[in-house]
């Protein structure tokens, strides 16, 4: 018998963790002489109070959905893919190449090409650590972290030396052709008579991200490959007994994971910047770890957690803009949320389990 009902595990624990993180954040804000209530109000109106705010929140959330799913898939195979950052960078390179060098007639075809290219590049970047893990036993955490640095250096080289337009001063590619520009939510919702902010970056990639959530759910719980991934993740010796090849699963899970992380590029590179800049990923690869942890590695949880982190990102940016709360404090608040929902999970879980046990005892 499980100690806690499922809803407590899925809903109650993240909620309590969030509330704890919020309380601690409020204390920190109080400590630097600002008003936490006003700060929360500002965050909420800034992130959710207008379609402009929503547009940014959902834009960030789209990034986090991709990287969160990437971490979740690898996690089901019991691997910790810390390399989402680098894989998303490479995904950006794939998108840039295919947008710049292929003459696309229309965005609807271009996005398919970009999805394929970003997934391919992201997967390729994950393939090397995966191979090293599967064949040589080099720990995937170490190698994927190292590959983040290599990706940054590679991108730097490619942008400065190869893709930078002649005479340009910044390390970035040229603007992508207009035919590859993705429709924003403003354009998508206008035909339905819904007016959405014109300047917000949320775009059709959001729909791709939501589809990816469904896709990952079906993969993990409905397909044979998903079954094998989960079996391998729970017990490698069991997988060996059943004839599930550890090499094959390690490779496939990491390829899918890297592909998902890479696909983030259709949002930030193709959808928003419309060119490839040096620091396009902006840490979304790492946020994906927190998103996956908080979402219990379930695509629906990832979806919700991604929106929460999108809210924190956008709300945090508003705070920094309108108050004396320094930008760094926003990072502190985000870190507190990660700390409580991820690392300190047991701090909430164990007392809660005791409580449920005590409750059951009095009933029985």
């Amino acid at each position: 018998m499980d100690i806690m009902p499922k809803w407590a595990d899925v809903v109650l624990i993240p909620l309590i963790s969030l509330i704890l993180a919020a309380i601690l954040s409020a204390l920190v804000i109080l400590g630097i002489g600002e008003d936490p209530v006003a700060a929360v109000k500002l965050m909420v109106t800034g992130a959710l109070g207008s379609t402009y705010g929503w547009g940014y929140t959902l834009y960030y959330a789209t990034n986090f959905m991709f990287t969160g799913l990437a971490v979740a898939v690898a996690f089901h195979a019991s691997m910790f893919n810390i390399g989402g950052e680098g894989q998303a960078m490479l995904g950006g390179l794939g998108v840039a190449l295919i947008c710049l060098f292929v003459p696309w007639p229309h965005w609807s075809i271009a996005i398919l090409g970009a999805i394929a290219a970003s997934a391919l590049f992201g997967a390729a970047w994950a393939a090397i650590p995966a191979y090293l893990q599967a064949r040589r036993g080099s720990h995937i955490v170490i190698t994927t972290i190292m590959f983040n640095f290599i990706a940054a250096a590679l991108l730097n080289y490619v942008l400065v030396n190869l893709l930078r337009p002649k005479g340009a001063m910044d390390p970035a590619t040229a603007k992508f052709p207009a035919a590859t520009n993705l429709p924003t939510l403003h354009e998508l919702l206008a035909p339905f008579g819904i007016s959405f902010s014109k300047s917000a970056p949320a775009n059709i990639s959001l729909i791709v991200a939501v589809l990816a959530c469904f896709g990952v759910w079906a993969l993990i719980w409905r397909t044979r490959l998903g079954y094998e991934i989960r079996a391998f993740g729970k017990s490698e010796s069991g997988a060996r007994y059943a004839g599930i090849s550890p090499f094959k699963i390690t490779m496939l899970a990491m390829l899918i994971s890297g592909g998902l992380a890479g696909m983030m590029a259709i949002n930030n590179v193709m959808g928003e910047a419309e060119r490839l800049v040096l620091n396009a990923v902006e840490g979304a690869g790492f946020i994906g770890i927190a998103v996956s942890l908080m979402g219990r590695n379930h695509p629906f949880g990832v979806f919700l957690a991604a929106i929460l982190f999108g809210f924190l990102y956008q709300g945090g940016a508003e705070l920094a803009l309108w108050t004396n709360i320094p930008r760094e404090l926003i990072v502190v608040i985000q870190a507190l949320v990660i700390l409580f929902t991820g690392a300190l999970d047991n701090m909430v879980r164990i007392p809660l389990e005791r409580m449920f046990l005590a409750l059951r005892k009095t009933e029985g």
Partner: protein
Amino acid sequence: MTSPAIELKGISKAFGPVQANKDISIAVQPGTIHGIIGENGAGKSTLMSILYGFYKADAGEIFIKGQKTAIPDSQAAIAAGIGMVFQHFKLVQNFTVLENIVLGAEDGALLRPSLGKARRELRRLEQEYELHVDPDALIENLSVGHQQRVEILKALYRQANILILDEPTGVLTPTEADQLFRILARLREEGKTIILITHKLREIMDITDTVSVMRRGEMTATVKTAETSPEQLAELMVGRKVLLRVEKAPARPGKTVLEVEDLQVTDDSGVERLKGISLNIRAGEILGIAGVAGNGQSELLEVLGGVSAAQGTIRVNGAEIDLTGKHSDGQSRRARGIAHVPEDRQSEGLIMDFQAWENVGFGYHHDPAYQKNALFMDNAALRADTARKMEKFDVRPPDPSLPAKNFSGGNQQKIVVAREIECNPDLLLVGQPTRGVDIGAIEFIHKQIIALRDEGKAILLVSVELDEIMSLSDRIAVMFDGMIMGERLPEDTNAQELGLLMAGVANGGAA
């Protein structure tokens, strides 16, 4: 009458909703061997953990020599004169015997004086109890039986008057077990009190003075060993009459199903695990492989089940099997009609976090019956199939959605056995089918294995339980050090002869 060496009064302990110990009271007289018998999960280990300070009882009192004693941790247990010999030894493999004995009982910052003291003390203990071990030998070079002696010496060095032994014979050959019992008898003569925890009725009958039976967390009876019988104890353990003997008709072997020739396995560190094994099994017969754990039986099962690679030849129904290729795995073996109940159901046979229905598909997840189309699995079909198998094999509770870890050991094993038998194999590999399984389920699983044999299937049975091998097998092969020492018919041999073969004495010591 003197006060008991140790007395428990009203001990209760619950883990969440599970009542592991319910109002347990026993009194162990000094200078006796007191057996505690019960099935897995009956609460024996919990009780001993309370006695040794690992768990705190919810209620109840402990008296040692009539004195009420609190045992909050193992230090307190040692101070109270209680010594524990665990089923899995707690020895440092690359330390010497002497270093292990001193470990945790050093006198000061410098090691040398305590080692010297320990050496003198060890010599005294050796003479007093006839416990001979070389104090300077490394643990890793000692046999299992000798390692166990070191554990006993460790307890005696800490001046234990009460020794608790948890399933001490699980890893011993019959000969080593006899030696252990001689040591225990000697300790009893010297006035030590011994508590022996076991699930083997024979050991209880052989050595104990008094026996307490536990069932579902309760102490159901305490009786004088001389005044009871194995049948009565089994009934007290299970709560109903049990058939201790396996009933089976003579085998009617058919054509040869499995032929193994010169099978060799060398492990990663270059140690030869199988040194040229040859055997064959015909349809409708059970070949039992006897042996002390770690003599190559696991490797043999794994090679046959496709889990690991080997050199040599294996033929099933006359067709040779690929042993080293890329596709030599569990999948290819199943395709050839080999089913495999692995030795360790928790780390191999089941995914403990998976629900029962997911486990019933485990290894058979490529089966066309479980596929909806090229992309998706037919989970509904798998669930329905699971419900059917659970009913047929009397798995309790019959809930396909329950995770494997929430079933008892016996029911977990029934899930594995159901999965492997119901796929209608030509050859069934069975490793330790009843390890950690309650008596009721043992009876059931044995019947299923016999029934499969009677359907004309070939069965390879590996077990460290000699009784199980002797009662199920139609032929018995004994393995020692990666070789087959000899083959016997169960009706022509006995435990002593097999025990000698298991210890590596060729020809079973017969002249």
